[in-house]
């Protein structure tokens, strides 16, 4: 309770974010991940703790409140898990140097992480080494004082990663989209890509590929949000040959499509995903035509969770007024309108995920349930 006055502001910022999430004033995986990260940074900066458990408990508590506020935005939980992972990593690094914290957890991701330029952290680590003691009776704050700077660095890294996620996903775009369809005549010279919805990741991915490749994109309108139109406008304005088609024609056009590229809302532990409604139809049509389905998504969309009932519910139902205007008063009482935001796309319908980082070891298993 000693920490109350200082943490009040942090506590308040958690509440504010929670109610914003609940009221859907912040939507979208990346925006929620960013906001969560900023709140966590504030919480850590203000938090008072004298050992690791206390710090983890504080973060978990915040995480739980945020996740409960909006369980449908998985990137909130993912961000919390990621931060917890970093906390442990930095703690182990600080207390025991570069010694591998957990036995038998050698992984490529760690190798990659440590290969990244983090010179300053390394310096601080060596400074902190030895002086960092948990539960120091003389100076209970010394632990926090020692650990906080490195944690701030780590959170900054996660922030940077979020900010560069589009670039990193798009880095290899040219390897996935081809100008030539070997074996066909010149009419078929360029590849035809089908996408739907307005995913920033997919947009950047396609634009990146357009620098080196010549190809066409078919964009489905994606009712009822119709933000496929926005996507089509954006793509064509950067010089990509773009066709905007109604959703109903997806199956009919699939025979001409070389690749389906989709965005994701969240990628589940079983390899399935939630994506804008219409994705399931596109993926199924692609399967019928043996067209490959590629999903572009930032690493923060990967969640360690899944459950058995995804197929029975599209998870999130929005406002029926997108489908049937409220002003159609006489109809409102006579029909039930459902407006699912997302489709669950089974793992067997997806051929490849393209993301910005390698997978395992971004979260610790013990954090799966916050």
């Amino acid at each position, binding site marked *: 309770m000693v920490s109350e006055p200082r943490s009040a502001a942090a506590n308040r910022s958690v509440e504010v974010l929670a109610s914003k999430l609940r009221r859907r004033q912040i939507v979208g995986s990346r925006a929620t991940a960013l906001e969560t990260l900023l709140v966590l940074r504030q919480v850590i900066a203000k938090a008072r703790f004298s050992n690791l458990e206390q710090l983890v408990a504080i973060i978990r508590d915040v995480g739980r409140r945020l996740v409960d506020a909006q369980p449908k935005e998985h990137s909130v939980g993912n961000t919390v898990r990621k931060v917890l992972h970093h906390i442990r990593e930095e703690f182990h690094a600080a207390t025991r140097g570069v010694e591998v914290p957990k036995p038998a957890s050698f992984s490529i991701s760690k190798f990659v992480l440590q290969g990244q330029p983090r010179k300053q952290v390394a310096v601080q680590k060596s400074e902190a080494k030895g002086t960092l003691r948990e539960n120091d009776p003389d100076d209970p704050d010394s632990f926090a004082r020692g650990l906080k700077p490195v944690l701030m660095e780590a959170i900054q890294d996660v922030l940077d990663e979020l900010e560069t996620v589009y670039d990193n996903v798009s880095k290899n775009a040219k390897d996935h989209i081809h100008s030539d369809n070997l074996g066909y005549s010149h009419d078929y010279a360029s590849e035809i890509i089908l996408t739907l919805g307005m995913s920033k990741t997919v947009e950047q991915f396609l634009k990146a590929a357009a620098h080196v490749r010549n190809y066409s994109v078919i964009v489905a309108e994606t009712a009822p949000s119709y933000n496929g139109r926005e996507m089509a406008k954006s793509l064509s304005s950067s010089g990509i040959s773009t066709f905007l088609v109604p959703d109903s024609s997806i199956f009919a056009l699939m025979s001409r499509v070389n690749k389906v590229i989709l965005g994701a809302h969240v990628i589940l532990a079983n390899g399935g995903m939630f994506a804008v409604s219409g994705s399931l139809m596109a993926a199924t049509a692609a399967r019928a035509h043996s067209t490959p389905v590629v999903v572009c998504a930032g690493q923060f969309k990967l969640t360690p969770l899944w459950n058995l009932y995804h197929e029975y519910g599209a998870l999130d139902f929005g406002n029926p007024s997108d489908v049937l205007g409220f002003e159609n008063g006489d109809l*409102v009482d006579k029909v039930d309108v459902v407006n699912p935001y997302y489709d669950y796309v089974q793992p067997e319908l997806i051929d490849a995920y393209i993301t910005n980082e390698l997978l395992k070891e971004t979260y610790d298993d013990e954090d799966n349930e916050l």
Partner: protein
Amino acid sequence: MAAKSANSGKEKLIDEEEEVLQAVILADSFNKRFRPLTTRKPRCLLPICNAPLLDWTFESLALAGVQEVFVICRSHAELVKNAIKESKWSKPGSGMKIVPIMTAKETFSPGDAMRDIYTRGLVTSDFVLVMGDLVSNIRIDEVVRVHKERRRTNKDAIMTMVVKESGVDHRTRAKGESSVFVLDPKTSECLHYEHIQGYPATKSISVPREILTDHPEVDIRNDLLDCSIDVCSVEVPSLFQDNFDYLDIRRDFVHGILTSDILMKNIYCYVAEEGYAARVQDTRSYESISKDILSRWTFPLVPDDNHPGGHIYEHTHGNRYIAKDNTVVLARTCNIGTNTLIGSSTTVSDNASVIASVVGEKCTIGAGSIIRNSYLFENVAIGANCHVEQSIIGAGVQIKEGSRIPKGCLIADGVIIGPNATLEPFERLSVKRNKADIEADEDGDDSDVEEVEASQDSIDRSALGKDSNAIVWPRAPPDEEDEVEGPENYENQRFMRLGDTASDVVLDVSDDGSSSDDEESSSSDDDDFHDRESVSGLSDASMGMSMDMPAISGLMADAEFRTEVTQSLERAFAEGHSVENASVELKTLRMASNVPLRRVKEAVVAAIVEKIVIVDGDAAGQRKEISTVISRWGDLINRIGGVDPVETVSILQAHSAVSTRMSLFGQILAALYQEDIVEEDHIRAWHALPESKGADRKEGPETDNFQKAWMIGSHMIQQFDAQASESEESESEDDTAPPPSKASAASSKQKQPVESSEEGTESGDDTASDSTEGVDGGESESASEDVSASENSSRPVSASTSEDETTGSESEDDGVIVR
């Protein structure tokens, strides 16, 4: 410690803002539509979808970033205060500072509450005014922004009302009480507001002519849902203070401000494109808003996402919401229908069905029972094999096995009925108050409960079951004298009642139409009616057959007014009042009844003519009698205002035509001429008027008389002509008044119908032509032309004085001379 620090943080945040966004919630309904559910708690604490209405209102405001909320509590104020104290909104971090204001018990209307806000000086800047039963996800902050921007250029834009397009027949649009908004489509300024009522049915509305002339384009909209969210400037409460008779915010304030010639304030509408907002203003809208919430029209304000009560529900397909805390017990064989909400710790037994209903927390539904379209508050126990249909069941109610609750029942907290009870549709039950309740209740407005309790002996309670503790509220409509006026009358309440289609009410209206529109008669009369814009084009059949009803009421009011005038004059004649006093009395009468001047004049002329005693067989005596009366009282015609001798002659003609004193027309006219009340020119002008010939009138003795009178006029004019030419030769037949003798002869002998019917094709008389000019709403521009084309016969009351000025311009000098 924690709370304190958080509070200081909150206050600091408020201080940082340039301007705190304030809101005022009127947490009292000021009506009794939810009785008996509201005998023990205020409406704003009734749950809808398992969260108190007030919490939904707070959430609606929190969404908009409102920082300070004043809750005006009246009935059960302590309960409201405690509820606020214990709600999550009082916890640190809610971002809202909520201040309950206990207003006096004598606050009987929203207007009184506004005056209280003024006297307490609560608001300091533009504020949001809502009722305590609002469910909304509209971005009110956006409305506030638009309002403030407008205020920057127009200081008279005092209010912005949020409305939502919904169509006429939307379930959420109140049928008993709705509104027609006349908007300027470009600025969305609200130019005119009319309250629409289910019963007595509002069949037409009147739009002042100036609106149509000043605005090239107007929208007359009967498809808007009034969300009762008003962004008010700080002077709105003071306007209520200045106008102590404003009771209702819409019917009195908005209508009053817009029709006022003095205030010159503007009110705007904000037609919300996105978002949902509606008020639980009666039991019918309670149902429709529950349905709207369950079918997610209020998204993201839905049970599984942002439940204001903080409950967590699992949303499964078909809009079924089950509390997520694993406390709900659903039997394997039970049936949960679509659009259903089930609160935590509730048990639904075998073979029970819950369809399109809301079940509160800790309820039990017995085996084989069927709950359909019903709303159960917490702790309700329903026995086996019960049927509950379209009803609201209060907290802690026990319905024992085998009972039947048909549609429209309201069962208040704590009632026990059954076993095997069978209720009437629309039954209302509550428990008898015990002594402690009565003592604790100092409200004083529970007289109706007492009455209900007193009347129990005469009611057969056997249908309620042997264990029942319920008292039955009156089923039949109240006695005539108890009937309240305005929207709270019994028949209109039926439009607001859960499950009531009120289809028979509409039929009743056509049965006794004349008695049904006392409201209109006060504001309308013959002339006024023709300026009304029938909104039939916009609404639909329900407003289609609007034309004749107000006409009847207009005539009624007219007849009433006429007898008033006659009585007043009879007294003046009998008691020998001075002309001044009599005219003052008439002017007052005219103001009180709000009738156009012409009506007064007609009544006065009629009274004077009837005052003349008929002297048989003595022409000289008759002439003397006439001149006595006219010289004594004739001046009164011009004293009542708006001197227009031509009109006077027309009126005299019209009256004479139906009077037994027809034969005196010529003599009376001559006497008026003698008294300088009418001049030669006026008689000529009258004579020249096409309608004076009366050619278009229907055949009959009256028309004959009418035409005779015109003929008399012709003779008089001939004599004038003759006089003019002969005057130099100083040849005179009769130096006082040439026409009378001949005129009386003419009235009895001369008949020239052929000639006049040939000439009089141009136009009809003034009453018959009116009916063609009722302007159909819709095409506003053409409407305005129509109105201006029909100069004389149709003119709104407000314009009638100016009419007198313009048409009387040529005679204004005369008027001065007469005075």
